[in-house]
């Protein structure tokens, strides 16, 4: 079961959150592949998870 869609704060793509989602759970946005943290429940609020910038090294 999934709740109705949430919107990714980065790319505005729709993100599916399972109904069993807990606070601080990390989900991945399919649009931009950012990691999103569930920062509030009822209603669910998503925020960009802090992350070290990934380097391609070029």
């Amino acid at each position: 079961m999934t709740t109705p869609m949430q919107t990714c704060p980065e790319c505005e793509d729709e993100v599916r959150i399972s109904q069993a989602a807990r606070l601080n759970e990390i989900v991945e946005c399919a649009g931009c592949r950012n990691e999103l943290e569930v920062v509030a429940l009822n209603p669910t609020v998503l925020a960009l998870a802090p992350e070290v910038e990934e380097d391609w090294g070029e």
Partner: protein
Amino acid sequence: MIRVAVVGAAGYIGGELLRLLIGHPEVEVAAAVSSRFPGKRVDGVHPNLRSATDLLFCSADEVDECDTVFLATPHRAAMTQIHRWIGQAKQVIDLTGDFRLDDTEVYQRYYGTAHAAPHLLGDFVPGIPELHRESLRSADLISVPGCMAVAGVLALYPLVARDLVEPMAQFDARTGSSGSGATAGEANLHATRSGAMRVFAPTGHRHEAEISRHLGIPARMTATGVEAVRGVQTICHVTLRPGADRSAVRGAFREQYRDEPFVRLVAHQRGAFRYPEPKILLGSNFCDVGYAVDEAAGRMVTIAALDNLMKGGAGNAVQCLNIRMGWPEALGLSFPGLHPV
């Protein structure tokens, strides 16, 4: 089942068409035309088709009536032979450059020769499902665009259609060696072409004209041959219109391609493949499209990648056939591509 013929079947596009059509559940390949190899086995030229077919090449004269003819000859040969094939088949799907432009003067400028069948130019429907799907459903003359043109058009169309960018596009295109066909000369010798970054068209590449036609804005293209056999990638530099921002750009792409079976948005924040890259598309019919917006500078970049023999040619042609016949659009085109490769 329909019966199809492939003209120019001994070439790279011809071979890719054969691979797809032999594997297509609704199609029987009735003829594979080659002037050099009539009577020879098709898999002698296309070794990947060993055990897939016992078909022999035939000459053009041996072709019986059939439902659809695919033209995969060099430029110019299609427009001189077109009447013959129109007389012999219900549909002609042309993959050459001959019927891609609708303006004979532009044709003359870019191809350096007068058009041999100018009265037919207006009858061809451009083989771009994403822009012309409805017309393709009943089209009997279809002209499939050039490989870099497909990439360029798909990468920019959502922005141009919504007036998000200024009317001038600067393309930087890269292509593998199969883009020049199987009949190329010593510039394509392995030791010379291997590891190349060959700027073969610093200005004035022919696909400029096609992109301009479809987008209605001027396009400039610099084209470079890089180390690859298959694969095209285009980078496009455009200036944002006042008011256009990242969110509008994102929305434009998402809306435009939401339901497209063969266009994928690839503009991720992480991973080695965060922007479109041809290598994971080998043999697949996808055109991957991405973008990066520099709001501060008021500029942006779009990126598109495809396999020039697939979405850049034969695959796109089969997609058009599927649409014309009312079959599922992805029929025979389901190979997703490989990784690693």
